[in-house]
């Protein structure tokens, strides 16, 4: 309808595209002013933590401990990914830790050799994820259609699923996981060459994504902003993936060489897939929209109920994935599975990673970084010989600091809005 006017200069091309670095700086500043701090604070935080513990504990800054941290963060990260989506909606899911328990219990049950219903480990894992997805759909439906606050629904879920686990495991106390496929999720290490190949693939996938963006922008005739940042990001991803593999390939346990852990690869694959889901699909866009202004989204024709249910599905399915890795890590499921700090650490990971509790702001990678912070801190405090109490205190303070940062950012956003 506007072909005649299309040739007129659009309002979009502002000065910030031409100025390169200065424009980039301005955009960053604008972002920060509007309450979008990005990953900068957390990356700085991780560097600080690593440097601190390297001086504090002699065996912290080693390749083997690096592999340890990756495996320790994997379970929490998977749960935290799901939490991101729930928080983006402005909801909460308190049931994830015990839904993770249900996932772990399901795989343990289905691989149990003496049970009479033993199936292949891979199939067992699929079943576990499917069962938890159904749990998520149930909880999400109650939230969406009945309108019961998610806090209450998932608190009930927390109790119910804990009850189910206690009930099932009361007699044996625990089920040992013997299936190699299931245990591989936490204890398989790629050979050195396979590690390099995976680093190459990850870099390649990212590069293809960037090239695709550039091509589609070209085709639509839209100038590409921040070419410098794009190149820097590709180089950063390459450096990170090859760097991680290089370190992992230097790790040893009792003289046996380790390598890139499968758990780490799983975490990265889900990071990529879920980031794509959140940022590049209509579903992801609608999640952000519902979290920002549910009424606006509804009026714009977004099926808000469907989005809510799908988000709770993702949350529970991710919990199952995390639960499987956590169970594989100890080769068993016992009465206490899903208890302790798992739930709060997962939520804390997302929040530390900059996902707003108020909905609409945050990214999947935040959960990754947040889980990394939590794993690094508790690993560091452990290796430095601190007691469990200290670990909780420090984690709590980091969480408080992160949320304070988020709140201040939000206040700045409101101020810059008018």
């Amino acid at each position: 309808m506007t072909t005649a006017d299309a040739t007129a200069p659009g309002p979009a091309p502002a000065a910030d595209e031409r100025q390169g670095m200065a424009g980039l700086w301005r955009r960053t500043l604008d972002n920060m002013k509007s309450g979008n701090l990005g990953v900068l604070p957390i990356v700085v935080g991780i560097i600080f933590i690593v440097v601190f513990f390297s001086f504090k504990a002699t065996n912290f800054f080693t390749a083997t401990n690096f592999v340890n941290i990756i495996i320790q963060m994997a379970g929490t990260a998977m749960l935290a990914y799901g939490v991101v989506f729930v928080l983006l909606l402005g909801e909460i899911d308190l049931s994830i830790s015990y839904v993770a328990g249900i996932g772990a219990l399901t795989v343990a049950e289905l691989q149990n050799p003496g049970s009479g219903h033993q199936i292949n480990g891979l199939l067992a894992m699929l079943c576990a994820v499917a069962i938890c997805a159904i749990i998520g759909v149930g909880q999400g439906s109650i939230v969406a259609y009945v309108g019961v606050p998610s806090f209450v629904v998932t608190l009930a879920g927390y109790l119910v699923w804990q009850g189910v686990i206690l009930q099932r495991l009361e007699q044996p106390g625990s089920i040992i996981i013997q299936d190699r496929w299931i245990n591989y999720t936490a204890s398989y290490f790629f050979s050195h060459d396979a590690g390099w190949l995976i680093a190459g693939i990850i870099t390649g996938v990212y590069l293809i994504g960037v090239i695709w963006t550039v091509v589609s922008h070209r085709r639509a005739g839209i100038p590409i902003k921040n070419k410098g940042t794009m190149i820097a990001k590709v180089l950063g991803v390459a450096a990170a993936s090859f760097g991680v593999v290089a370190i992992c390939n230097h790790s040893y346990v009792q003289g046996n060489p380790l390598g890139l852990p499968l758990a780490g690869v799983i975490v990265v694959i889900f990071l990529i897939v879920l980031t794509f889901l959140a940022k590049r699909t209509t579903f992801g866009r609608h999640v952000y929209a519902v979290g920002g202004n549910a009424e606006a989204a509804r009026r714009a024709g977004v099926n808000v109920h469907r989005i809510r249910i799908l988000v709770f599905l993702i949350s529970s399915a991710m919990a199952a994935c995390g639960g499987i890795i956590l169970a594989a890590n100890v080769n068993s499921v016992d009465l206490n599975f899903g208890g302790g700090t798992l739930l709060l650490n997962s939520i804390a990971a997302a929040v530390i990673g900059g996902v707003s509790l108020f909905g609409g702001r945050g990214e999947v990678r935040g959960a990754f970084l947040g889980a990394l912070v939590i794993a690094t801190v508790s690993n560091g405090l452990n290796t430095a010989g601190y007691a469990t109490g200290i670990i909780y205190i420090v984690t709590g303070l980091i969480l408080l600091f992160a949320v304070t940062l988020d709140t201040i950012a939000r206040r700045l956003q409101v101020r810059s809005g008018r």
Partner: protein
Amino acid sequence: MCAPSAFVVGNAAVSASEAPLLQLRGITKSFGSVQALTDVDFEVRAGEVMALVGDNGAGKSTLVKCVAGTHAADDGEILFEGKRVHIHGPKDAANLGIEVVYQDLALCDNLDVVQNMYLGREANRYEVLTEPVMEQHTSETLSSLRVTTINSVRQTVATLSGGQRQSVAVARAVMWNSKLVILDEPTAALGVAQTEQVLELVRRLGEQGLGVVIISHNLHDVFETATRIAVLRLGRNVGLFERAKTTQQEIVEAITAGQPTKVSGIPSTATAPAS
């Protein structure tokens, strides 16, 4: 008092050769015991800016919501482009080409301009967003409406001023080849300069051949933009005025003390409800 002299509903029916874009006949709506609308007639022609004014509780918003599909009218009929239509939800209204810009804007603060413009109707291929297409089309729409105050279509709505937000909301309403745009209090929260921006935009919509309904408390805004002015009082029609042939004085009298132009119980049009 003044109302009968300005009563032109009958005249409008005479020029039926060019059917109004939207025509409401005998719309009645009640919420429990509260009678919100009683036998209300209303019409908009393509290319005109029709103002809908009235005091608080006069039924303006309810009438709009009946057209937008938020509420279903208890009685009466809606004709769009001369054809009788049934609007059961916002989707139906949107399919007809009716877009409503609500008072509270209905924008998502956390999304940027492009994302808001395409909210609920994202351009996609196999559910994967085609961002560049959306970005380009947004820029084109804004420049066609001569909205020049927005620096970047990639900034979040949270960083925009009230006038800019209103511009985004209006631009979103017209981007979808809509035929009728309804603006609910578009200038209520704006400063003087920003009000001027938005009113300019409203006039431009009319010039582009769209039917525009503007609901406002502010008679200055109404006289700046409207070609005709319909007045509601206590859920009834109390007058329909040509902007050029009336005064603010007359409108204020109609708003505060206008008498119903239709007597309830006696159908004034040929299409009395069968029930």
